[in-house]
């Protein structure tokens, strides 16, 4: 066994040197996502989205006088705060990343924020952590997120449903901070608006069977079923089982549930279902979809667009500040994200850099219509969508 130890030590040494060599040179951006663990099925596309933005900038060569940007991936595991902290620590202290795109799950995001990002003064932009608690967390102005907090979406969803003349719904949510937070805020808003929620049933992601949840939801009844989950996790399982058993025909889908993949998987079953997701117009989304497909990334995966936007924002802020030091560019992120200025869509990062170079204001819109409010999170203009003939159609904005 001593051999094993020696061998690992030697490998560590070599690997360490390999990494240490690349200390100077390109600017690095860390991508910390749960490549293993419960969210492992969506993270590759998220990382792909972020890397798409990075590659786009590198191709223009317009970033800080031709400096290239390099993405360094690390595994947050989604569940293991200690491993995530260690991974982030490595990115910051060894790879010397200028910012972190991540993390994904709220738990590990909080741990990295408190133990690494704040401590070392590194900016984090999470594409997917939606827990309201993170809005309140101490962050020294270092934490941003391109996914909206659940609180606001709940209110919007309530209005969307009410405006369709529906007053009785059943509600199921994925049993994590995203689902629970969204379900809580929605239920509160909906009941305040005079609606009634017949049942609130949690579901666990990645479990074997959802018959029990569907049985209870069906028994409680309701005109539509609100599913606060993820497209490729329990949420899909619930919808599938509800459609199959004829429990519900119409579903209300918040951001985590909207993606072309689920529409394709479930066929005509989702026709007539509706929902809302952050976005002000569909232009950016469409462009992003095209770009992503070209790069071999599934563009409709959840948070793929948010990941692109997170990376793009970080890069543009660095360009604007002319510095890769967090203390310099953290303050620019809000500026970049919001009006006034020329609107920047996906694929226009080169132009954005030119505008910045020329000292002009820009308003980054990106794939998900980013708009930041204090304390550094997506304001959430939402677009209302409806699924018609197997396609996601935008029917209005809120």
């Amino acid at each position, binding site marked *: *066994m001593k051999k094993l130890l020696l061998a*690992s030590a030697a490998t560590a040494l070599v690997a360490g040197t390999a990494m240490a060599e690349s200390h100077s040179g390109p600017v690095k951006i860390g991508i910390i996502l749960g490549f293993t663990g419960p969210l492992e099925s969506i993270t590759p596309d998220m990382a792909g989205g972020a890397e798409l933005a990075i590659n786009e900038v590198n191709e223009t060569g317009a970033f800080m006088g031709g400096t290239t940007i390099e993405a360094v991936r690390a*595994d947050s595991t989604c569940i293991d705060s*200690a491993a995530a902290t260690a991974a982030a*620590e490595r990115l910051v202290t060894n790879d010397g990343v200028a910012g972190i795109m991540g993390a994904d799950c709220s738990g590990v995001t909080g741990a990295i924020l*408190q133990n690494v990002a704040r401590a070392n003064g590194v900016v984090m932009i999470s594409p997917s952590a939606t827990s*309201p608690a993170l809005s309140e967390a101490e962050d020294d102005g270092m934490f941003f997120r391109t996914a909206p907090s659940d609180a606001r979406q709940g209110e919007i969803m309530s209005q969307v449903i009410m405006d369709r003349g529906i007053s009785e719904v059943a509600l199921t949510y994925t049993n994590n*901070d995203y689902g629970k937070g969204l379900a809580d*805020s929605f239920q509160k808003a909906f009941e305040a608006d005079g609606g009634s929620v017949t049942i609130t049933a949690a579901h666990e992601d990645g479990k074997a069977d959802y018959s029990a949840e569907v049985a209870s939801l069906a028994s409680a009844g309701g005109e539509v079923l609100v599913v606060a989950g993820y497209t490729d996790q329990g949420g899909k399982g619930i919808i599938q089982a509800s459609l199959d058993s004829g429990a519900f025909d119409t579903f209300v889908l918040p951001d985590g549930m909207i993606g072309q993949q689920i529409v394709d998987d479930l066929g005509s079953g989702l026709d007539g279902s509706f929902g809302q997701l952050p976005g002000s117009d569909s232009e950016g989304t469409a462009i992003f979809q095209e770009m992503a497909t070209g790069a071999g990334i599934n563009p409709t995966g959840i948070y793929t667009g948010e990941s692109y936007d997170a990376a793009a924002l970080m890069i543009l802020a660095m360009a604007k500040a002319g510095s890769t030091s967090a203390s310099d560019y953290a303050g620019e992120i809000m500026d970049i994200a919001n009006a006034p200025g020329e609107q920047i869509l996906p694929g226009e990062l080169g132009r954005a850099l030119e505008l910045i170079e020329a000292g002009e204001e820009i308003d980054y819109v990106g794939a998900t219509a980013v708009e930041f409010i204090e304390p550094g999170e997506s304001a959430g203009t939402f677009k209302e969508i409806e699924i018609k003939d197997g396609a996601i159609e935008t029917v209005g904005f809120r």
Partner: protein
Amino acid sequence: MTARGFLLYAGMALLIVLTGVFQGWNLALTILNMGLISAIMSLGVNLQWGFAGLFNVGVMGFVALGGLAAVLVAQPPVVEGWNAGGLRLLGALALGAAVLIAAVQVWKRKIGGQMRAMVMLALLIGGFFLFRAALDPAVNAIEAINPSLSGYLGGLGLPVIVAWPVGGLLAAGAAWIIGKAALGLRSDYLAIATLGIAEIVIAVLKNEDWLSRGVKNVVGLPRPVPYEVDLQRDAGFVEAAAGYGLDPVTASTLWVKILYSGLFAVVLIAILFLAQRALASPWGRMMRAIRDNEIAASAMGKNVTARHLQVFILGSAVCGIAGAMMTTLDGQLTPGSYQPLRFTFLVWVMVIVGGSGNNYGAVLGGFLIWWLWVMVEPLGLWAMELITSGMAADSWLRGHLTDSAAQMRLMTMGIILLAVLRFSPKGLMPER
């Protein structure tokens, strides 16, 4: 410790030092800190498995209970929550406990078989509805208060270090109940029962929002050490750091980690010392005698069940302490993140690889496996890049392999476990 042991420990220290030299001291200390906690968990499992041969696959549950203690002890109490329904809730819990105790008492009575079962069943079912009727309104009242930020009862507002022993006590209490019920089970039945109980503990933590905010997580737990940002603003500290030639950021992050290391090391050494004393004591010898031949030991008049219960509680308590320490280090409790693969099976790998029955081995296993758990990721990526370096940059296989590098982690753990079991079945540091 044997010469081999010293060599192995020196090797382990070397690994951490090399990590520090090549990858940065911050990372090395991060690994060391969690290594210390892992070592404690590993010690706890070793008490049960190495000393007594109890196959506990519910480590995750005890670690999580320790984490709960950190919230219950260190968070400030939520006064509105208590006013809204705190006492009613405690009353309901007391009622629930009373029903259970009554049911157990009925079961112990020697009244006619059918009758006894019927009475117990009626008591349990009736009691359950009463309990729900008392509990639900209280819970609703508490959870209604500002759910996105509190919606729970909070804790006692004590220093977080107090949570460590409390975490141990909480886990011990749970272990007592579980042990009373399940330790009579044979072999694999005990294993699966503990696995199931751990899942139940996690289900409670996830869904009882009034207790620990459930999946909404408790973040920003108080720390036993200063915050880095405060240190960076502290003129005295910045000056002292400059004296060592360090910039304030590096100095503060290192200093905080060193403080944690110190605290954790004290706990580890204390537990290790006690475990060593226990191992060498007549109690420890009797434990091992029971482990090696339960029938003979019970024939010699040893109360096997009672001894098993003792060691089960002790081991679980140690896991609970480690769980509380881990939650303190993370600064948050996230019940959704407890998964058996990470918090049960990985701890088992630590014990087996280190050397079951040998406390020093278990500690070594904790450090080594944790180091690998963190380092396999960059090493795996590096290895993949080496393997694929000959392939065309856009080849499908190359992309596939590089993308899969993160999956090396589990596979490596498995291969190491299998290799150790095959070639050094008693672990790196075998029991004498």
